[in-house]
């Protein structure tokens, strides 16, 4: 992808017309990841010069028809309608970046994957029969080819800007796959687990947030999802043996915002045969 020319005049105007088209799509989510784009307060207007914001309902009622050069997709797939819509989004998009834990690992709503969705519906709704929902909440990549994934619940501004910048320059975004532990070391945060006995998912969680939670004195709760080949089972054993964490609590810790990420889901299932987040009777 070529950068649009900066100079003014007819060439620039032609380049303007060639500005890559950006679309932002929402599936089942809280809007927090797309809000992160609007939270780029210092960069937003410059970005809007570089990209034509063609579809971004949270920000604009103007809708430009596809195809789109870059689609940012937030949310997981939880309804029959979304199943169809994601296919259409893929057909219309040259590059698809899934943004956030919902889009990359199901999000908090994927807790339903190990529960009975009809029972959930009955608990919340007077007329559950009107609902048209799937039994599972699944990441975007389970349905269509995804070109790149941004982790986090929510994603960070820095990673979003890096991903968009990389797209504009036609290169791959540069992100490490180290764990949150490395970021604590870089930041000089004393380990909350070793020094404070606080259960922390940092050793198995992908870096990217800057090790935020330990800097605030709490354990990482894994909102960036599993790091590359994490040894989740061994960390959970360590929590139990060294920190006295109840088995049911280890299962809950793995079943949060990235509950459908295989590394977390498998370890949670292994630790909890009954398949209930709080263990039997919870």
């Amino acid at each position, binding site marked *: 992808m070529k950068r649009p020319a900066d100079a003014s005049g007819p060439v620039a105007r032609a380049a303007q017309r060639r500005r890559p088209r950006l679309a932002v799509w*929402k*599936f*089942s*989510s*809280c*809007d*927090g*990841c*797309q*809000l992160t784009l*609007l*939270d780029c*307060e*210092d960069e*937003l*207007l410059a970005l*809007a010069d570089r990209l034509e*914001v063609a579809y*971004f*309902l*949270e*920000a*604009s*009622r*103007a*809708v430009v028809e596809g195809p789109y050069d870059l689609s940012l997709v937030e949310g997981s797939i*939880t*309804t029959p*309608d979304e199943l169809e819509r994601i296919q259409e989004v893929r057909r219309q998009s040259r590059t698809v970046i899934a943004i956030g834990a919902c889009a990359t690992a199901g999000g*908090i*709503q994927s*807790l339903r994957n190990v*529960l009975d*969705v009809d029972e*959930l*519906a009955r*608990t*919340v*709704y*007077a*007329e559950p029969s*009107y*609902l048209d*929902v799937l039994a599972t*909440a699944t990441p975007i990549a389970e349905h269509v080819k995804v070109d790149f994934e941004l982790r986090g*619940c*929510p994603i960070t501004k820095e990673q979003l800007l890096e991903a968009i910048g990389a797209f504009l320059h036609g290169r791959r975004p540069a992100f490490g796959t180290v764990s949150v532990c490395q970021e604590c070391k870089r930041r000089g945060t004393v380990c909350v687990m070793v020094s404070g006995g606080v259960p922390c998912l940092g050793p198995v969680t992908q870096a990217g947030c800057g090790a*935020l*939670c330990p800097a*605030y004195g*709490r354990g990482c*709760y894994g*909102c960036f999802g599993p790091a590359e080949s994490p040894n989740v089972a061994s960390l959970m054993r360590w929590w139990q043996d060294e920190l006295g964490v109840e088995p049911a*609590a280890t299962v*809950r810790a793995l079943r*949060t915002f990235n509950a459908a990420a295989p590394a977390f889901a498998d370890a949670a299932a292994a630790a909890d045969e009954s398949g*209930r*987040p*709080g263990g039997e009777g*919870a």
Partner: protein
Amino acid sequence: MTDDGRELRRLSVGALARVEGEGAMRVRVRGTTVEEVGLDIYEPPRFFEALLRGRAFTEPPDITARICGICPVAYQTSSVQAIEDALGVTVTDDVRELRRLLYCGEWIQSHALHIYLLHAPDFLGAESALELARSAPEVVQRGLALKKVGNDVMAVVGGRAVHPVNVRVGGFYRAPSRSEVAALEGPLTRALEVAEETVRWVGGFTFPSFEHDHEYVALRHERDYPMERGRMVSDRGLDLGPHEFEDVVEERHVEHSNALHAVIRGREDGAYLTGPLARYSLNFDRLSPRARQAARDAGLGERCRNPFQSIVVRAVETLYAVEEALAIVRRYRPPASPGSEVVPRAGRGCGWSEAPRGLLYHRYSLAADGSILEAVITPPTSQNQRAIESDLARFVEARLDLDDQALTWQCEQAIRNYDPCISCATHFLTADVQRLP
């Protein structure tokens, strides 16, 4: 034309823009009668209340924050207060003030987002703030700068602006240091002017003449403009604590929309409004002198019943939140302890707070080990939906001479007056999957 020779008009907006979440609007007009108005919520349900069962009492501030990325602090605050109530935990004044500071950050960012990026374009005939930025970049930049100050406050107190990590039952994980908080003084001081300028700017917009007569419901506190504490009052005599909320408010299943609407029991219609207009009209005397003056200068009375002027009210509240945040920042000393000790026990607790969009109520029942037996959450948009629809019907009836395109845009604008947060509403609203052409 229909059988009886009267013209049938249908207006619909398949996907509302510049609202949080996914909703649609549908209006059916026969001749000069508005037959049906619906604000359909097709945002998929995510079953939060059900998913909370069996989780630990420590988890709702993190889990319920994910109901809405635009007002996570409201969810965190209402949930921790409800659980503290269940566990008999009291928090120190220092901790409560830090909560209020975090909440000010959320009001500033959420209101600035709504004023500049979601709502103002309607008044200026622009499709979006990005379009607005082409003709008036300095205006949009001013809005973004204001929003950023709110985000900065949230980042210092909460760790980040979307889904802060620092809130726990009993208080905070860590109290920010004096110097971290002091760094906010400069940006907040500069934001005062910007916020005042914002009130002047939106005060100069042209507002369609329209007044509603719904009951206003908001928190009210003996000293403060309501945010994290107060009793629930109304302009028709309600005055209650959180434990009485469900005795007074009923969630009713409404046939035409397949949605639950919150209504006040024992009233003929029962529709009521919560949010900036109600808060302001019930608490004008609790605003700072500077915010009151800015409101008067912008042409607002002590009460406001025109939903289109809600943008001015939001601007006044933003100015107040900036002043309030600045006052807390200036007197801040890190508390001796960032939070109270919390011991699980069986119990039932209720809590509420004023989300940017209005009253947000939570109730939890806990087992002896602190696990959640039941959770109930009533967000502002579900409370306002009935009033929004009835306003829309009256609004359309008075404007039937407009062509469809103009009328549709005005209806969208009328909905955006309430800044409906559909992501919030949907965790309990039944989705109406019917979509009219």
